[in-house]
């Protein structure tokens, strides 16, 4: 099937290709005549991508890319690789030429900090987030400035400058942002607000849903389950997506990703490195104990103490948390941090001190011993591994009057096929994860289903290994970027449900996205010109040489 697709794609261009080859040959000869020294052909390139069964889209994308790069006279081999192995080779071993992978759009990544850090050269050591090895001191300096800039406008300016700075160097190709296409049963529940990067299974989803059928309990179906529900050991999105429904945070991000005070009544900057948080009055944990400043300070210091890797990036700036009075906590930072108040405060849950203070090593708790008492809008009911999870509405929560559902049940299926069948038969009301391309059109034809397209700010990328030729040459990277037909990927592979990539900060993240940077439109002639200007030419066989 893949061959059929690539063949079909290649057909209209095959005529053009031969004529270009003739052109290339003449050019090559011309250069040969003028400079008599031997010309080196370019090293062959291995293009690593995921296996077809893991992700058919990234797999096909690799062939679309390879096709065009070969047209430029490069020798390209596509290597479909098992996902974790591809990750390991790219990040840990940095043993790759060019690799196609992606970053998921997690809410906290709407803050530009994380995606920008993937181009910081201090992250280019093995295992770091900048495996390509882009090294631009100016970029690093701006990165530090923006991460300490409190003034949003000033920070916005710096973030834009950073995008303008890295983009012409083409250290990576941002291929596309893929819409998350999810669906819900409008005969049973209504009122969902889609959230970028989260779809309908956002932390607001269950609070917004309104029953329109007989059942008051919202049923969500997903293809994966949490690794565990230990707030100091879970290392998966699935764990936190569920836990955040029964643990409260000081700040919650709105659907437009604006930080809203939640368990906090107010968040104030009281010095360069101190943030004062005043708690809401009258909150209680699910076991009836009051939520106090002691609990909040304890939680943050406990997280520092327990050294929970998953949250380290949120805690990196924190020196300690201290109780000022019954409702006020001071967060003392090591250095000014722009993202602490918005991101970190919205990620760390509030744990009850009276339960967790007795636990010395939280990460090694057996699942049956993990406390589940929070102060969130829902309270924990059960978790039957491989089958389902349940929470019920917590009536004493300050937001309880705005919640229309009685509770939430999450049914765990083996794959998206099962999830979709569940949606079709009415077993579940909403999908927790994006549907497969084939299911989307099926769902659209069903009367009881509403299909929702949610733009994503996570991106699929092709990362060049800047340590290896030919990618150590900026001109080659620029030319290869121009020779990458991203428009076609969005139209053919995503069926139009997505957007062509242009920056690590996606257009949907409009406050931080720089819209006017160089776009690198697909243009084979421009790509060739770029190479020629940099002194490349083509030999008799049409191979790129220098």
């Amino acid at each position, binding site marked *: 099937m893949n061959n059929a697709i690539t063949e079909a794609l290649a057909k209209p261009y095959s005529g053009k290709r031969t004529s270009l080859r003739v052109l290339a040959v003449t050019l090559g000869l011309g250069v040969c005549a003028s400079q008599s020294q031997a010309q080196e052909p370019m090293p062959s390139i291995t293009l690593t991508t995921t296996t077809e069964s893991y992700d058919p889209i990234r797999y096909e994308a690799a062939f679309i890319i390879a096709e065009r790069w070969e047209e430029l006279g490069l020798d390209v081999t596509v290597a479909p690789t*098992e*996902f*974790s*192995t591809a*990750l*390991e080779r790219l*990040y*840990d071993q940095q043993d790759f030429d060019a690799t196609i992978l992606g*970053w*998921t759009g997690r809410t906290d*990544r709407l803050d530009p900090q*994380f995606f920008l850090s993937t181009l910081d050269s201090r*992250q280019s*050591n*093995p*295992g*770091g*987030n900048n495996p390509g090895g882009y090294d631009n001191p100016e970029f690093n300096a701006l990165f530090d400035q923006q991460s300490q800039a409190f003034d949003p406008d000033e920070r916005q300016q710096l973030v834009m400058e950073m995008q303008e700075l890295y983009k012409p160097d083409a250290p990576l190709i941002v291929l596309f942002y893929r819409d998350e296409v999810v669906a819900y049963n409008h005969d049973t529940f209504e009122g969902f607000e889609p959230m970028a990067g989260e779809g309908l299974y956002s932390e607001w989803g269950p609070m917004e849903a309104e029953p329109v059928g007989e059942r008051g*309990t919202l*049923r969500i179906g997903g293809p994966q389950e949490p*690794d*565990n529900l*230990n707030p100091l*050991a879970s*290392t*998966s*999105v699935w764990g936190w997506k569920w836990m955040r429904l029964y643990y409260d945070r000081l700040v919650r991000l709105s659907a437009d990703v604006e930080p809203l005070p939640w368990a906090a009544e107010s968040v104030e900057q009281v010095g360069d490195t101190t943030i004062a948080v005043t708690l809401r009055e009258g909150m209680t944990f699910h076991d009836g104990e009051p939520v106090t400043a002691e609990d909040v300070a304890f939680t943050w210091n406990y997280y520092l103490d327990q*050294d929970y*890797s*998953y949250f*380290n*990036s949120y805690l990196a700036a924190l020196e300690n948390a201290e109780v000022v009075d019954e409702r006020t906590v001071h967060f003392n930072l090591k250095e000014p941090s722009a993202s602490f108040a918005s991101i970190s405060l919205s990620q760390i849950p509030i744990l009850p001190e009276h339960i967790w203070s007795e636990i010395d090593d939280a*990460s*090694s*708790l*057996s*699942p049956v011993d993990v406390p589940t008492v929070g102060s969130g809008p829902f309270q924990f009911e059960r978790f039957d*591994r*491989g*089958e*389902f999870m*349940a929470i019920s509405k917590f009536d004493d929560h300050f937001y309880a009057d705005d919640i229309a559902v009685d509770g939430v*049940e999450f*049914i*765990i*299926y*083996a*794959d998206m*096929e*099962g999830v979709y*069948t*569940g949606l*079709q*038969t009415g*077993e579940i009301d909403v999908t927790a994860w994006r549907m497969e391309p084939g299911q989307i059109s099926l769902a659209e034809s069903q009367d009881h289903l509403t299909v929702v397209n949610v733009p994503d700010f996570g991106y699929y990328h092709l990362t060049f290994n800047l340590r290896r030729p030919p990618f150590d040459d900026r001109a080659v990277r620029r030319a290869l970027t121009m020779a990458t037909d991203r428009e076609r990927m969005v139209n053919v592979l995503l069926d139009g449900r997505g957007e062509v990539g242009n920056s690590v900060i996606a257009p949907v993240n409009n406050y931080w996205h720089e819209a006017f940077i160089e776009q690198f439109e697909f243009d084979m002639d421009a790509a060739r010109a770029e190479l020629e200007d940099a002194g490349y030419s083509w030999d008799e066989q049409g191979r790129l040489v220098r």
Partner: protein
Amino acid sequence: MAVHSESVMSSRRSYLIRRVFHGFMALFIIATLLFFLFRLGLPDPTAALITEGLNPEERERIRASFGLDRPIWEQYFIYLVNIVQGDFGYSFHYRAPVADIIWERLGNTMILMLPAIVLAYAVGAPLGAWLSWRRGSRADTSGIFVGLMFRSAPMFWTGMIAILIFGIGLGWLPTSGMRTLPYEATGFFDKIFTLDFLHHLILPALVVALYYLGSPLLIMRNTMLEVYGEDFIEMARAKGLPERRILYAHAARNALLPVVTQLAVTIGLAAGGQVVVEVVFSWPGLGREILNSVRTSDFPLAQASFLVMAAFVISLNLLVDILYTMLDPRVSFK
């Protein structure tokens, strides 16, 4: 006479001891292979955490908490010592004792596979015997055709067709999981002794049974055809016994041997579950867990699941060899 039976007894005992010893040796070798195979073949268990944005130091700390920072021989030694003590370790992914996970999932798998296999053999073997009696007839050819068809059709396909017809189309049967929500079950038996559970069991069990039906059917039929040529059948006919009695009481009993072997091996392998069926019907069994454990490089869970499977196959093989001697006195201990 007494001397004779005593020597049979002692030869049986030494045979058993030898076989059990061989079984343990095989398990030891398998355990060793699994240990090194997963560490060499699977990516680092913390590799997937890169996408969560964890930096190398943070991942190194997690690796250390799994004991993966120690020399591989030390890890191997600890692993062997733990296994001997019946401790399969802690799952990296679930942060839970591996044994708890495996026993629960194994239970779920067996409660699906056992009824399905028993059904397949209870129907397949007599049907095969009957077909052999009617060999060459239309019933025979169509019986073979149906058996072979379900045996060679991919199970996910049969499963999806079944879901499409009985689940979505007619809406008679549930298509996923073991129970209808919401439920309150406190233990394993609480979970399975309900009508609701049986209701959920029907579709996946039927799909599995149809798949397995072919082997007892064909084996029984073909062995029966061989048995028909034996002298004792001639003898029975000469005695004027009714054909039906010859078929079931004389021929079938003698043709059962290969069917029993096949049954035991099938049950042994069934411990690993039918991954495909467990995925198609979202059945929380061991097969799905094995797949996940390999995907997440959860070494302790993957090792233990495969080891449990191996132990099942080895012990059922042993059981069959012992059963043989009871079913067929000609088989002796060597």
